[in-house]
């Protein structure tokens, strides 16, 4: 019971902070809202027994990516601009919202077919780092894992090269 309420609370939090990201005028406010959203999401992951993913979410997303974002915002010394809609009835803005709305409708309609409830119990080592590690290194995900590491290296090199003052 208590857990369910907690779940709903975290979900609400995620939603509110996500909306906040998209509607803030100042980029810093948006970034901080996003951090908030990530924390709530991490909590949700933990409640869904995805322990490793929850930790990684905080470490990587909130701890690295968002830090990078905030660095850049401060580096470029950006001020805020108009919020979500500027001017209110700009056709493109409306079109964008309409498109998003349409997609949402579609997904929601698809969801009406889903009637199950969340699974009750999971095994104790479900979602732990040991099980995840065994599945990656013992299963067919070994190659993609290594490729992902190469990808990260490439991205790193690329970012450095792109941002240099003189080549």
């Amino acid at each position, binding site marked *: 019971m208590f857990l369910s309420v907690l779940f709903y609370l975290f979900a609400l939090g995620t939603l509110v902070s996500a909306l906040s990201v998209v509607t803030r005028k100042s980029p810093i406010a948006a970034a901080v809202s996003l951090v908030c959203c990530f924390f709530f999401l991490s909590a949700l992951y933990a409640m869904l027994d995805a322990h490793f993913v929850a930790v*990684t979410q905080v470490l990587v997303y909130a701890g690295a990516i968002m830090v990078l974002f905030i660095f850049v915002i401060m*580096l470029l010394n950006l001020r805020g601009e*108009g919020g979500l809609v500027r001017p209110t009835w700009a056709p*493109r803005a409306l079109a964008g919202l309409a498109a998003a709305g349409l997609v949402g409708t579609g997904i929601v309609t698809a969801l009406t077919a889903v009637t*199950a*409830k969340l699974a009750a119990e999971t095994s104790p080592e479900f979602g732990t780092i040991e*099980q995840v590690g065994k599945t990656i290194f013992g299963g067919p995900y070994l190659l993609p894992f290594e490729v992902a590491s190469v990808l990260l290296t490439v*991205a790193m090199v690329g970012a450095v090269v792109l941002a240099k003052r003189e080549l």
Partner: protein
Amino acid sequence: MDQIDLHIPLGLSAALFVIGMAGVLTRKNALIVLMSIELMLNGVNLAFVALARQSQSVDGHIFAIFVMAVAAAEAAVGLALIILLFRNKVTVELDDLNLLKG
């Protein structure tokens, strides 16, 4: 936890995705657009994790981790591009970037 419908995490995932899409299509500031993209990716992650719990297999988690890795790479390169852009045009507002016009 077994009183919670599967709708909730999946619906939240959809909501996150749609909100992120709205942000991508409407905001002027390039950085906020990037952040909205991250929001979309997170929505997908949530769906993966919830369904992984349903099917009792960690494959969904692994995929979520890969998504995070790719998001990190993409954020790095994207921010480098924005810095480059700012250096050349002293603006990160997408309305002003119209060299492709015509």
